[in-house]
């Protein structure tokens, strides 16, 4: 389906910094527009007895909001992050151990879930944990006139008719996760999927250049 020309097809600026903490095995600070998160990875580390799995590593995800205790909205976000990371990690390589992923929200100006997912992937790369594939997330919003807006901020989301979050894998570009809000029809969903898939490819390139630069700096 053709997308109108008056659509915002550019992502907000993505910046990141790798390995800024010394204690975690991998850490990243990532900002996507005004939204920013920090992710730290510990793993594989010793596992608590009640969480032990004999055939694979147990993946623990902790999403910490900017202030206060995690609410039920944060739990939903955490469950998506957990399932995405668990699918991507080659956890069968680390039986009887655990991989802990800590996501600290710094600022939420819309699109915290895609930003956190991308941060998790970069942090896992930084930690050097074995993965089956990389993953990248992109979001888009749909306004009342049916125009798509890539990587919407919170101002747009307030008035949006629908919003979509997608996570893709790096190998077959298959859909790992999909989360939507608002109502839409099938054609709109398909266009949103295509749009986000293109954006996700840009994020995979971003991973590559970031890791390349990081390795060059180390040498």
């Amino acid at each position, binding site marked *: 389906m053709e997308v109108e020309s008056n659509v915002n097809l550019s992502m907000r600026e993505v910046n990141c910094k790798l390995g800024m903490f010394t204690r975690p095995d991998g850490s990243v600070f990532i900002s996507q527009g005004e939204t920013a998160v920090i992710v730290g990875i510990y793993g594989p580390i010793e596992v608590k007895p009640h969480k032990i799995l004999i055939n694979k590593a147990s993946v623990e995800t902790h999403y910490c909001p900017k202030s206060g205790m995690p609410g*039920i*909205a944060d*739990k*939903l976000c*955490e*469950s*998506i992050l*957990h*399932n*995405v*990371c*668990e*699918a991507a990690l080659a956890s069968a390589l680390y039986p009887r151990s655990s991989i802990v992923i800590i996501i600290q929200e710094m600022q939420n100006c819309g699109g915290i879930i895609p930003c956190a997912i991308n941060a998790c992937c970069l942090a896992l790369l930084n930690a050097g944990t074995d993965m089956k*594939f990389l993953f990248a997330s992109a979001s888009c919003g749909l306004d009342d006139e049916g125009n798509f807006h890539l990587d919407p901020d919170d101002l747009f989301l307030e008035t949006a008719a629908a919003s979509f979050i997608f*996570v*893709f*894998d790096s*190998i*077959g570009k*298959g*859909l*790992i*996760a*999909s*989360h*939507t*809000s*608002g*109502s*839409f*029809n*099938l054609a709109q*969903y*398909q266009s949103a*999927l295509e749009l986000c898939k293109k954006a996700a490819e840009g994020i995979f390139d971003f991973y590559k250049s970031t890791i390349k630069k990081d390795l060059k700096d180390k040498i």
Partner: protein
Amino acid sequence: MAKQFKSLHPTKFYRDYLNQDIRPDGRLVSKFRPVIINIGSIATADGSALVRIGKTTVICGIKAELCPPKPEKPNEGFLICNVELPPLCSSKFRPGPPSDLAQITTRFVADLILNSGCINLKDLCIVKEKLVWCLYADIICLDHDGCIIDACLLVLLTALKTVRLPVVQYDAAIDKKTIDASVKKCLNIYNTPVSTTYAMFEDKIITDPTTEEEEISSGLLTVVVKDKELCSIHKPGGSPLSEEKLYECINETVNHADLLITLINTAVSECNDDNKNC
């Protein structure tokens, strides 16, 4: 022998079945479980329903209370959903604070009701800035055998359709409420969102999975539709899925939705025949 084999190699057990396009419970891969809806199960509630999808059983009671509205939304009432997964329904849950799954389901169902616009909170307003209805929808799972989101959404929508609210007269000058319980009004439900869940197992898609199937699957997909429109496509991670398969699932849900909506409407209309004061 099959029993021992199943507990030792659950994945292989299911793979052998699914390669023959049949499931251990005798269903085909793309077959839904029978759905049973009962209405007015709780006489003391303002609206109630009980839903069974296969063995999954959930019950929902709706309690209406009068309260003042929020200052920022003076003409809107409240609908507060709560999904409870007590230890009774499955060995996975322990007593104590709500489990993660219960919190996630609560949030997801509440979001769906809001997104679909099936209920207009302005209809719950009695006197602007003074008095509104607050509906507490408590959904309790009695038997957890997969597709908990589908069951919760179905039971909530059915229960909402059975809600009867008395007419309230409010005298602002002396802050006096007069409740006329003899005249009861239905709630306007603008559309009926219904959902179906799919589980991914290797390269197969299993429709309407049971708990066992959910546990061995590599990911779940929930599709919510209302009036031929999509309301949510929720895939919280898991193994990657191709787009063709995703669209197949969506089409299947759209076809199945008609059946579920007919079922809800039949149940509700029978209830309306019983008490004609609506």
